[in-house]
């Protein structure tokens, strides 16, 4: 029995509707294809509408119904999202177009505590996602698919007997064959399998016989399993449309919750989230949340998204919100603190370093979320003699270079002190003869220090630097530009 596979198929009968109505709406929604209604939800059925009627007919019956043109590519995308999500239960997930996802579960039963538990978990989560689903479990892929479409439940024994009550029109066979079989008085699989397969092969072709053999599992039916591409995309269509930011927080929380599940299942972390907020009449707005360190914490994501939302101008109406994430890194196998979240406050108010690291990252995250990525940076020194080029901005937390020893270039620095504040651009100092009423003058304290470098690239510098004090006692770093014969203020000994 070990080698026996166990297949679970999830069939989404209302997928075409539910991609539009995730926020389960009470309003009647119709999906149309070439002006003909092809799918409708329960609310629409209650109004007496049926598939096959035209848009005009539907409007005469009730004019408040909502129409969407069928979007097959979005249906497929949704299926693939579901498949990606199902990856948490088993690595063997396959997409069955147009509306099913197939899972092979024989290897996962023990881990998740049995088939029932897995089923419960799947149903609960899918319900939260606003999807209606029919589940079928059987011993071959095709039979599981039939079971789910017929909503026939679970079978763990012989396939042939289990499907005997399944009507044949559910099988994935040509309508022509179904019609002929109906004429022969064959309506369900039990009747079908009473006929010898070799005869059916003669009558309806080899493909049909092959299908039947796969269905009952006498020949293998290999499946193409999805690759676990780490890519997250999920969206919510808002019905009715919303117009204020606060009503976006709830759908945002749900999307972030899904992302969190996605990350958990794969032991991944992410450092970038992208929300796309759109309305059919406006250009979509993008809201990008960047984190200083990869993270998977729902609360952190939500807090940062809220901060970002506060600072973003949105269009007056919003009908769709989408969350994308595609930059992932492996989560370190962190077994957690033994004294989780316990803060050891020592006598001098010193906290353990793990918590400190978290706080440090949190500050960067919040600043970048609200003020933009350029709003905070750390500094580093660059080995260049030109003062304006001897420092650079660094992304906070990204510098892993070890702490430099305290005094490495001691003698040189002692000789030529540098100011604590540097002007963004050197400022011209007007000379005395141009403003005769000024009485204040500089007095040179130290200098000159000649810096004459950079003639080899495009930023030549030829200057004599002085440290000078003005009559009020403030200390400045000034230079005499050798090429232009002018004096400039460059720094302040703050």
């Amino acid at each position: 029995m070990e080698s026996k596979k166990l297949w679970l198929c999830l069939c989404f009968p209302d997928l075409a509707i539910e991609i539009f109505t995730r926020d389960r709406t009470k309003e009647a929604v119709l999906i149309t294809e070439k002006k003909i209604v092809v799918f409708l939800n329960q609310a629409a059925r209650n109004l007496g509408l049926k598939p096959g009627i035209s848009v005009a007919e539907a409007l005469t019956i009730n004019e408040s119904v909502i129409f969407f043109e069928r979007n097959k590519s979005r249906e497929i995308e949704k299926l693939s999202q579901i498949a990606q999500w199902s990856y948490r239960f088993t690595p063997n997930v396959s997409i069955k177009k147009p509306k099913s996802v197939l899972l092979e579960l024989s290897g996962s039963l023990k881990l998740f505590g049995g088939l029932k538990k897995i089923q419960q978990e799947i149903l609960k989560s899918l319900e939260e996602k606003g999807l209606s689903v029919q589940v079928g479990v059987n011993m071959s892929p095709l039979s599981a698919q039939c079971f789910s479409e017929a909503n026939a439940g679970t079978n763990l024994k012989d396939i042939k007997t289990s499907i005997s009550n399944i009507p044949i029109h559910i099988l994935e066979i040509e309508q022509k064959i179904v019609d002929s079989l109906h004429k022969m008085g064959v309506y369900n699989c039990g009747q079908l399998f009473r006929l010898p397969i070799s005869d059916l092969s003669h009558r309806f072709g080899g493909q049909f016989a092959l299908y039947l053999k796969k269905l009952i599992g006498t020949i293998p039916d290999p499946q193409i399993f999805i690759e676990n591409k780490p890519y997250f995309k999920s969206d919510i269509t808002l019905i009715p449309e919303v117009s204020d930011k606060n009503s976006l927080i709830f759908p945002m929380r749900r999307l972030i919750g899904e992302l969190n599940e996605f990350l958990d299942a794969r032991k991944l972390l992410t450092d970038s989230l992208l929300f796309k907020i759109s309305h059919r009449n406006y250009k979509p707005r993008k809201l990008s949340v960047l984190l200083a360190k990869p993270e998977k914490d729902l609360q952190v994501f939500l807090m940062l998204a809220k901060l970002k939302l506060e600072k973003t101008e949105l269009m007056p109406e919003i009908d769709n919100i989408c969350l994308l994430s595609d930059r992932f890194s492996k989560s370190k196998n962190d077994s957690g603190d033994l004294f989780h979240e316990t803060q050891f406050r020592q006598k001098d108010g010193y906290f353990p370093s793990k918590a400190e690291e978290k706080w440090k990252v949190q500050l960067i995250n919040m600043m970048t979320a609200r003020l933009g990525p350029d709003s905070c940076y750390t500094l580093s020194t660059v080995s260049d003699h030109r003062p304006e080029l001897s420092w650079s901005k660094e992304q906070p937390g990204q510098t892993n270079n070890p702490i430099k020893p305290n005094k490495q270039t001691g003698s040189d620095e002692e000789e030529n002190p540098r100011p604590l504040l540097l002007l963004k651009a050197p400022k011209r100092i007007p000379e005395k003869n141009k403003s005769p009423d000024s009485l204040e003058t500089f007095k040179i304290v130290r200098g000159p220090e000649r810096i004459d470098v950079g003639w080899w690239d495009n930023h030549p510098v030829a200057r004599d630097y002085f440290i000078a004090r003005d009559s009020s006692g403030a200390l400045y770093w000034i230079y005499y530009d050798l090429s232009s014969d002018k004096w400039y203020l460059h720094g302040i000994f703050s």
Partner: protein
Amino acid sequence: MRETGLWKASKIDNEYRQTVSSGFDTLDKELPGLGWPQSGVTEVLYDRIGIGELKLMMPAISHLSRSQNRWIALINPPHIPYAPALEHEGVDLTRLLVITQKTPEDYLWALEKSISLKSCRAVITWPNQIKDAQVRRLQVASKEGNCWTILLRSEKLASKTSPAELRIRLRSCRSAESTNLKIKILKRHGGWESPEFKITLLDKLNRKRETLVRKKPTLIYGEADKKKLSLTPTSISTAHQSSGI
């Protein structure tokens, strides 16, 4: 009582044991607990930029940056904090965070968050306009976040009251000859205001200069004369300019 930011005399004993030496003996003697506080708002009122108002903090900031894995934040500095000089002061640059923003609302938001989130060991900032109520809020936040908050403000405010728990006035000696800084502690816990006293910030600079002068005095003044170094610093008396707010 704690929430109002009020200070009680009964707390003096335990609260002020934990201080950081300023690196200047004369200053340490005047500070409550013989050093800079670990938390709370310290107002530094200075008459003009360039008198050594940052330099005065540097020994303590350098020590804090190396002793704890938390940020030292500079929020809206008026100019570029110059990395080579900071490194020379012994500051661990990987723990020094510069935060800039454009609007006054963002400034106050960033300031309060940096202080209260426990992520910063010390915050140095140059507020242009900040109300007493806001300073009080920062005072409470800094106790909560265990963060030493330094507000660098104009000397003109010395005559006004402020909710900051430590207030220090810095004045230069108003002469091109002197390297001294005149300090007066205007407000401190457990004591009245101090008399004005002097400390020498750039003694190394001076000592070196003397040796230099002795060696080649003619070069220094000769150079300067040749280049007509009689300049007007009127355009650069930019005390208390600050970007943003």
